[in-house]
């Protein structure tokens, strides 16, 4: 798995979002704010460690069709709530310490999420998956 740190600014991400919106997928449209320290992950699977109380890495970019796997390596319960009320994510009862949750992102877009126990949509324990065309 190749991981590279990058700053996703207004260039490629904006273009991606514009394309997504044009294709009628604006459910995933970002709010335009800039994500920092986005880690690019190659391969068909991308791992995110869920620590107390941080998603590590917080922001990742993957190709569409990638399965993202979150593992709760913390001691506490957490959850994963999509900011856009998408039909993915996991409740705390199903995501206790040691639990694994996975979701495959097929459509390009920026998928922001948070842990409702330790954050809100915009602060605290938050994360994002930037899904790009392969």
């Amino acid at each position, binding site marked *: 798995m190749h991981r590279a740190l990058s700053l996703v600014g207004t260039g490629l991400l904006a273009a991606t979002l514009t394309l997504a919106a044009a294709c009628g997928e604006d459910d995933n449209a970002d709010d335009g704010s800039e994500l920092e320290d986005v880690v690019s992950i190659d391969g068909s699977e991308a791992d995110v460690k869920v620590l*107390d109380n941080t998603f590590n890495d917080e922001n990742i970019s993957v190709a569409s069709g990638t399965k993202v796997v979150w593992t709760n390596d913390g001691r506490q319960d957490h959850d994963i709530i999509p900011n856009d009320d998408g039909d993915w994510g996991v409740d705390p009862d199903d995501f206790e310490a040691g639990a694994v949750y996975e979701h495959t992102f097929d459509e390009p877009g920026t998928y922001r999420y948070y842990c409702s*126990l330790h954050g809100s949509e915009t602060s605290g324990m938050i994360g994002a998956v930037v899904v790009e065309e392969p």
Partner: protein
Amino acid sequence: MNRVVATVLAVGLVVSAAACGDDDDESGGGSEGGGSSGGALDTGQEDIRAVPEEYDTIQEAVDAAEEGDLVLVSPGVYKEAVTVETDDIVIRGLDRNDVILDGEFEKDNGIRVLEADGVAVENMTARNYTTNGFFWTGAEGYRGSYLTAHNNGDYGVYAFDSTVGLFEHSYGSGSPDAGFYIGQCYPCDAVMRDVVAENNGLGYSGTNAGGNLYIVDSVFRQNRAGIVPNSGSYELYPPERETTIVGNLVYSNNNYETAAIDSARLAGGNGILVAGGNDNVIERNLVFDHDIAGIAVVLIDDAEAPGGYYWPSGNVVRGNVVEDSRLADLGVVQEADGGNCFADNEFATTAPTNLETLLPCEGTGSGNPDEGALDIGRLATMDGKPESGVYQDMPIPDDQENMPDADSADWEPAGAPPEVDVDAIEVPDKP
């Protein structure tokens, strides 16, 4: 900023104003950190957000508050989970024991402060939350004063990834993890003083915390384990380091009836347990009545740690009074060059034997580190460790001391914690 809270009479006037339709939360009445002095219903008064007189809920008042405002809460049971995202506000209860946030074992946090700096919470109780009573995360500047947190599912009073803080005059009980927690910060630049933790899994936990961090003049009793600063990869920034633990009363932390996460079960029966931490100072504490060790400095296994363990190093254990520990009053498990030291303590037993001769704080030690070595197996295994109790069923505490003059005292957002005169702190008296 140094303002005077209006008296109950003044709050009444605010209520009257609200009834007349003058409760426009967007009116800009707040002074944005300015320093108008109270005592009259003027701009200073508009800085006070009274609950429930002006706002039905604490959350509504918090959402309306501007920097520098006071959210003043009258007695009542508030069944809400409050999120704070505004810098430099103060949330104060008029009566610590009668201003109660109740999570009904359904809501997550009583008050949680998300990346808002300078927020102070004073003089109230948070109970029955599934995670935490009072919770700051990502804050620079925080303060909790005269808080009671009991029967909460993770922590009582909790600062995470936050710096420049103060917990004082507060009480935490009935949490499976810790009554008080300061974690994932370096330097933390924080002080915890005059707090009481009892009936928790851990009295204090401080994972990956340290740097100008003081735990002083407090009581840790009848938890499973008392004070447990530790390293762990389940949070960022290991190891734990540079915590100063001085003048605390630590006793009878063998309460196996508490709710307890696994690490609390493992640590049970210890007074002060440094687990994989470095360069901590543990001085002039009174520690007694423990099934395992009074003060122990040990390694902790962690698959993510180099070599699979966080080893303790550079810890100083000096001038403590330690009594009645069933395994050892003082103990250590370290690497050969760990650099932990023990000096000037009053004790009866150590593991290894002659510990102060073996690992002195000045000069070169001598002796056999294998003679009477601490039985780390007593700590490292879950075998025979009592199961967790149920946090919902933990004892309900008695009323706690109120903040003086809560209805008239000045309010001020959280700033730098007070300087701690460590040298002036003496070994506490036995209760």
